């Protein structure tokens, strides 16, 4: 008997031991550390400095943002703006991000049913998928009632965001046209000037200059090998193809028929171009392994003389780092952005612009107080709301801008001058919360003055020597790509084909680039072409063409 009692006691002990683990919450960048108690009552407030009347009860906007980001960094950068918005608007913005693939996170959220009331940065495919499950809240009636600024900001295009039933499933973010460049080739200016600044117009010119630069600087100060070009996980193959006249990875004929780069001679030439660098030992052998940070270290350590990628990457990893670390730093120790155009290409299509926006902010079926949320969204989409959300906390010594009341604002001259003379501290500025909550505001020029934009540092492009040089060099490389947006819904048979093809193309391009001989290159490229077409690339091209033509017709109406 006692044995049985003892055994039962051990069993209970084991069970208790098994369940004593602490239920730790998952990492998040919730701003709740500095937030007041959600839902706590506050006295009825009058209109605030921005003319917006804060709610009597704190509006809590608890959201997951579908961008891969570092939760600690996000928490740091949202702290001040969170406090400012809570104090002045009685709105508690609780942002959660994860350092994982957002697609993966959203799928798990949908499958588990564990998701917040607001999701920011959801792409069109996911909006469609979530809507099919009845998880998305229709915003149209609320926008009709509480969203005059939303309607005004989106203007005639508002209707294009409604689905066939007239429902507004999501409010776009990053919408509007900001006519500045994104993508280009880069050249290190001081070394380029050393060479006598030979003209660079074609990929061949660029290759020759980079090759000579590597010959002149074969190793860096630490004796490490220098390469002409590298790659990182933020570079998109489709943008590279723009140099050969392809638009976002597709060749477009006069009748708007689209052909994927894999099935074009231009695509092959682009891959061959990189392969040539590889075969001559001019390409970083770790190019397809590099994460952005790995690439940045190599770049900062002066091991990569050229770059084909986003404009800010060579700023971030180049002179922004050098000016604080190199004692003999000079102003021309930097990269300038240049346009390359392959012979025969009609134009270099480097920066596709989709004025629809990057993605959407949706309210899920768990939303408790949608009216209050829409009211704040409406403020955020107003010009002053966009300035506040884009430029961060105003009226501090280190703020980028000052705001009085009644719409009167000005840039902080000290910060502006710091930007123009290259001493601007981006890291410190980020902590004021500029664009830390990019929930619904656009990136185009604001309608009240026709020149401000939510990107603080882009407001002075005309006065900034280097930005002006970049924009002048690249002004003909921007194009409107709005009509090419396609939503691959969950029940669309091309959704899986598209994902499989994109996956295969990424891997196949990499394999072609690191081919050891011309024969290997041709064989690898043809194998990629054959496999992709076998997977259904030709059908995908047809489908994209049809959708593109439909969109063009709609936009031209």
């Amino acid at each position, binding site marked *: 008997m006692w044995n049985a009692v003892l055994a039962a006691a051990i069993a209970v002990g084991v069970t208790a031991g098994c369940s004593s683990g602490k239920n730790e919450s998952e990492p998040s960048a919730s701003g709740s550390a500095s937030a007041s108690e959600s839902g706590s009552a506050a006295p009825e407030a009058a209109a605030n400095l921005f003319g917006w009347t804060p709610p009597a009860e704190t509006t809590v906007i608890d959201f997951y943002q579908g961008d891969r980001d570092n939760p600690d960094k996000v928490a740091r950068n949202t702290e001040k703006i969170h406090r400012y918005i809570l104090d002045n608007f009685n709105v508690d913005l609780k942002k959660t991000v994860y350092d994982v693939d957002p697609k*993966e996170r959203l799928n798990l959220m949908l499958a588990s049913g564990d998701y917040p009331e607001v999701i920011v940065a959801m792409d069109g495919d996911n909006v469609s998928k979530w809507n099919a499950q009845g998880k998305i809240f229709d915003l149209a009636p609320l926008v009709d009632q509480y969203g005059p600024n939303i309607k005004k900001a989106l203007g005639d295009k508002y209707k294009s965001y409604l689905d066939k039933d007239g429902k507004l499933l999501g409010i776009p973010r990053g919408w509007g046209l900001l006519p500045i460049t994104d993508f280009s080739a880069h050249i290190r200016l001081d070394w380029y000037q050393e060479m006598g600044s030979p003209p660079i117009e074609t990929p061949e010119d660029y290759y020759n200059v980079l090759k000579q630069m590597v010959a002149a600087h074969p190793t860096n100060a630490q004796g490490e090998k220098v390469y002409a070009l590298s790659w990182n996980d933020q570079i998109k193959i489709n943008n590279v193809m723009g140099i050969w006249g392809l638009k976002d990875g597709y060749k477009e004929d006069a009748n708007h028929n689209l052909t994927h780069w894999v099935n074009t001679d231009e695509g092959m030439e682009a891959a061959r171009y990189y392969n040539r660098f590889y075969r001559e030992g001019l390409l970083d*052998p770790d190019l*397809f392994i590099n994460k952005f940070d790995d690439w940045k270290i190599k770049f900062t350590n002066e091991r990569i003389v050229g770059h084909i990628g986003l404009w800010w990457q060579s700023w971030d990893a180049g002179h922004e780092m050098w000016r604080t670390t190199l004692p003999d730093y000079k102003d021309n120790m930097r990269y300038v952005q240049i346009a390359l155009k392959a012979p025969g290409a009609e134009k270099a299509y480097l920066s596709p612009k989709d004025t629809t926006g990057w993605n959407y902010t949706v309210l899920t079926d768990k939303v408790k107080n949608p009216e209050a949320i829409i009211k704040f969204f409406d403020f955020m989409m107003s010009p002053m709301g966009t300035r506040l959300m884009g430029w961060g906390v105003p009226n501090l010594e280190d703020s980028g801008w000052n705001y009085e009341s009644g719409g009167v604002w000005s840039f902080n001259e000290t910060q502006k001058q710091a930007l123009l003379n290259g001493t601007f501290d981006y890291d410190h500025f980020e902590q004021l919360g500029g664009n830390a909550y990019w929930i619904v505001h656009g990136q185009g020029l604001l309608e009240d003055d026709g020149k401000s934009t939510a990107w603080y540092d882009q407001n002075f492009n005309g006065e900034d020597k280097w930005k002006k040089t970049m924009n002048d060099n690249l002004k003909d490389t921007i194009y409107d790509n709005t009509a090419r947006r396609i939503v691959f819904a969950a029940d669309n048979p091309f959704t899986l084909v598209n994902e499989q093809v994109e996956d295969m193309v990424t891997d196949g391009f990499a394999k072609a680039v690191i081919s050891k001989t011309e024969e290997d290159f041709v064989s690898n490229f043809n194998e990629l072409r054959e496999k992709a077409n076998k997977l259904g690339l030709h059908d995908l091209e047809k489908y994209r063409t049809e959708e593109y033509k439909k969109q063009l017709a709609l936009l031209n109406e």
Partner: protein
Amino acid sequence: MQNLMRRIVRERQIWIMAVPMIAWVLVFSYYPMYGMIISFQNYVPGNSFFSGDWVGFAHFERFFSSPDFLQVMRNTLAMSGLNILFGLPAPLILALLLNELRNKTFKRVTQTLSYIPYFISWVVVASILFTLLGSDGLLNRLLLDFGMIKDPISFLGEGKYFWTIITASNIWKDIGFNSIIYLSALASIDRELLDAGKVDGISRFGTVWHIYLPGIRTTIILLWILGIGGILNAGFEQQLLLGSPTTSDYSEVVDTYVYKYGVQLGYYSFASAVNLLKAVVSVVLVLSMNRIAKKLFDTSIV
């Protein structure tokens, strides 16, 4: 039935102690298995498991006819095969070597050091491998310094090295920990057999061959059967962390494939079908190996 009840009453202390474990297995291992029915449906995330359209074996057929099928199976079997071929005997050899050490302090220190890699996460191991094997890594620098190569070799960027790197890192990580089971089996060998061997003048190699290995045969067979059963478990984290677009032809295995289509892309039914297929193959392999072992060595686990 009466016999069973009598037996349970007789062994009640053991059964009571086993209740939490049985409950654990039932709740966490058997109960979730009903979810495998989505392999035969077009399951939509967020809905009930019983609400999807039934599609029979369509997802299985799609996997078999997919261009990925042969490549994924080849990679899985190759990496698992290498792991069984080299990873199974490696801890046995280490255990035999440790068993032969006479200096107890040295033996304990060596044994403890050999366990350490097992407790290092794959994320850290991947970082170590990038540092060692990257183009600017230690290995390339040594090869360059000794004039053995002209240009650095992209060990982690070329598919042909991938299986070797995975196999070697698996062995490095697990050899110490996996040797524990062999060491305990070696410790249970009757000392009288060893003494008898000494009297007969048997050498140290002879002791290993004629006494130790036959003495731990059951353990070896058990681990071999389990190893064969897990042949489709070629790893997951290591492939995910060390794989890249240039090595994908060699790095994609069943588990990463399931992860990609299930968790990343949201095709849960398709991913479940592939995983179910893997589980069925594993069970069949375990039972087959068990039968073979019983026939050949009169030893089995079931």
